[in-house]
Each structure stands twice: as C-alpha cells, then as structure tokens.
C-alpha cells in the first residue's frame, strides 16, 4: 500500500486491475484504492510479471503493506503498485518507520497470511522465537484492522478533516517553520496575461495561477534548500521539480497533487495539466504518482480578497509557497504613490534545511521571474 501523502495511514483496496500471470508496465494502473481523498488509481512503478495478489478487495491495510508480488520477488515482497519513485519512498519510510518490510515468518504463517489477505508486516505480535507463527497470523485475522471490510462508497468528508489534522499536527510538531513575506507589483504579469489571453479563445487562455506555478518551479530549481524531502538522513534535495498544487475538494478539505517537472514545461502545458488535475481531483480519479510526487507545494486562496496566507509545510517536503489575492493597492514608484495590482508572496520553510536569508533569495527569484513573464 503506497503512501499517497503524509496524511495517509491506511487505504482500502477497492479493485484489482491486474491478475496473476499478467505482464505489467511502468505506469499501468494496477489497482484502485480508497483513501480519505477519494478513490485513487494506483500506478505501477515497476515492470514485471504478476506472480500473485496478496491483499483482497475490500481489505483496509496500513501504508507499507505489500499488495502483490511480482515474479522473482517472492523472498522479499514489494508493493506491486506501490510508491512512485522518489517521493513515496520517503513518505512511506516516514509513515512506517521502524517496521520491517519483510518480516521473518514460518512458511505456514506466510501461506495462511496470503490466504487471508493479511500483510505480515501488519502483525505486531511476534512469538518468543522472534518470527511470526501460524497462531500469530490467525490471531491477527481477528483484529479489526486486518479484517476485510465492506466495499467502500464515497469518501467521507469527516475523515478528510481528520487526515489533514493529523498531517498538519505532525508538520507543526516536527518542522521548525519560519515565515517570510514579499509584496510585489503584479502589473507586468497581469498585462502580459491580458495580452496573451486577448489573442486566444476561452479554452486556450491561461489562469494567473499557471504563471505562479512556473515562477515557483523555476526558482525551486535554482535556489537550493526548498525542493526535496526531509527524511531519516536529513534533507534530500530533488533534481526534479514536481510542484504540488493545493486544490480544494468540494464540500471541504484539500489535496495537493503534483505537476511533474513544472520547471521544464511551457505555460500552456501546465495549464492543460492543471485543468486535468482539478477535474480529476473533483471527480475522484487521481493517480498515485501525482498524489505523492510533490517536491514542494504552492497554494493560493484565489480572488477572495485575502492578501497573504501563511501555509503549513506538507511533510516530508521542506517548503510551501503561498500566493494572496492580487489586489489594487498604493505602491510607491519613483517617489510617487500609484495604484497598482499587488501580490503578496509568502514562504513557509523548514529551518532544519534553510535560513531566512536563503528564503529571501528564493522569494526574490520568484518575484523576478514574475516581473519578466514573457520569459516564463
């Protein structure tokens, strides 16, 4: 069961999309899993032949549980549909720290566990010999966590709130946040966008969020200390810049799936992907790869009139950028005060990784990129 974010502790396997004997390619959807965020398409990050399926549809299992075994992996089962490359590994490590991935167990216990659809790693009671016995497995089968549950329906909103609460509590407990704010004259970007959109029919136009995502991605690729993960070995910078975008769920809650390699994509591509992402977030067809992939997150409150927001870092990431509403404000230009569209950029960053000085450079980079929108 892959971790689809720091706020996920368990998931319910809804449906298998693969069968034993089938050849699976990287990126194929292997299963549907229900989480607090809805039903997610789990993609394989490996290529191989499916040997057997371990977890039965309807079972709710903790993050880190092996779901299926690919041929040649029997000795150390891995999550077939698991973890997209980098991020989920980090997330899964954090979520399941201290738990062995392939616990020792007797052959009878292993066979029984497979038959019952129980992951051996989820069994806490080890016998005196230090390995899992048949009795341990049978006892575990009676535990609520391991027992099959009725096939789920729509995700309940109450649990989204609980999941967000858990992730944000963890963030505030573990991450020493610092905050910076920078106000900028948004005239150049607004004018550029206006001209760009004027020449295009509605479906080809850009939202200003797209400029913010691209500018942030560029800066994250250029200034060290804001793009990557904080894991057991400290900060692991990421080469790739996958920008998580906070998207509100209807009826409350939010998720932050990623636009992959946002620093290298043209604005029109980012717009298309954002459009697609928002649609799937709201219709419930997110993919595991994009849910756990973000190397940093951006969030914006849109046009509600809030000029600055002070976001909380989404672990194991180390920074989050907030964009307020663009509002007309007095702005000093060459000794005179003029009315200008003003945008406030805020940064919450992890003090274990960076200092305010680097944070200031990072925000200044984003501003400078937005001052030259034609180069984005």
């Amino acid at each position: 069961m892959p971790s689809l974010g720091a706020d996920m502790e368990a998931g319910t396997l809804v449906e298998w999309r693969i069968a034993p004997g089938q050849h699976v390619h990287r990126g194929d959807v292997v299963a549907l899993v229900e989480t607090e965020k809805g039903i997610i398409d789990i993609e394989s990050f490996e290529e191989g032949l499916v040997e057997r399926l371990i977890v039965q549809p309807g079972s709710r299992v903790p993050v880190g549980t092996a779901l299926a075994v690919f041929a040649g992996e029997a000795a150390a089962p891995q999550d077939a549909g698991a973890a997209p490359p980098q991020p989920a590994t980090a997330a899964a490590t954090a979520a399941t720290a201290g738990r062995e991935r392939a616990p020792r167990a007797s052959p009878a216990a292993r066979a029984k566990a497979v038959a019952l659809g129980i992951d051996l790693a989820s069994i806490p009671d080890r016998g005196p010999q230090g390995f899992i016995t048949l009795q341990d497995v049978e006892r575990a089968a009676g535990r609520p966590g391991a027992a099959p549950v009725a096939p789920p329906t729509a995700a309940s909103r109450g649990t989204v709130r609980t999941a967000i609460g858990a992730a944000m509590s963890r963030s505030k407990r573990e991450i020493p946040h610092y905050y910076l704010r920078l106000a900028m004259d948004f005239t150049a970007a607004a004018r550029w966008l206006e001209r760009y959109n004027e020449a295009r029919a509605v479906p080809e136009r850009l939202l200003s969020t797209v400029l913010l995502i691209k500018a942030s991605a560029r800066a994250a690729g250029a200034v060290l200390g804001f793009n990557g993960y904080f894991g057991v070995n400290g900060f692991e910078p990421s080469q790739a810049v996958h920008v998580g975008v906070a998207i509100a769920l209807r009826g409350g809650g939010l998720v932050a799936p990623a636009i992959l390699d946002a620093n290298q994509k043209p604005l029109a591509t980012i717009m298309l992907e954002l459009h697609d992402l928002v649609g799937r977030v709201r219709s419930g067809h997110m993919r595991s790869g994009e849910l756990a992939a973000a190397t940093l997150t951006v969030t914006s409150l849109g046009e509600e009139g809030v000029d600055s927001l002070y976001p909380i870092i989404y672990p194991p990431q180390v920074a989050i950028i907030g964009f307020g509403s663009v509002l007309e404000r007095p702005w000093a230009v060459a000794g005179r005060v003029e009315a200008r569209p003003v945008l406030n950029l805020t940064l919450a960053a992890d003090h274990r990784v960076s200092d305010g000085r680097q944070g200031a450079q990072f925000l200044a980079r984003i501003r400078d990129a937005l001052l030259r929108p034609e180069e984005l």
Partner: protein
Amino acid sequence: MSPPTSVASLESQVLALLVDIAPDVDPAAVRPEQPFRDQFDFDSMDFFNFAAALHQHFGLDIPERDYPQLTSLAGCIAYLRQRLPGGAAP
C-alpha cells in the same frame, strides 16, 4: 443548435452548463443575483470551465474583460441576451 428565444430557455441552458461543471449544484436552488463563487465554492478553474462551456455552447467569443458580467446567473442571462442574435426576444 437553434438560437435561444426566451429567458427561460437561456436560463435552463446556462443552468445545465453549470451543473455539468459542478455536479453538486442544485439548479432549483441557484439564486440569480448572487455570484456563483459565494453560492457554491466556484473557484478560478470552475469559472474558466464555465466560460469555456458558454463559449462552446453558444458559439460566442467571450473576451476576458466581459468575465465580470458572467459571475451570476442573472448577469449571464443579461449578457447572453445582449450578445446572441435571437437572445433579446421575450
């Protein structure tokens, strides 16, 4: 599609587009004068989709500067009546 000829027809078409974008919207409960944003969490992407749907459905080119007129149901109807050839008919 033949041009819409009455306010009622325009309204039902606009509501259908709206429900298409936000399936949880109850068309009977939409308050005509109140901005969509305040009624059902319409964000910038929803509005983008809505404008694109109006563009496609009515075959209209809608410049961005007209967007403020489209933020409520009543605003949309007034705008469409003014822009569509047969839209002004009762």
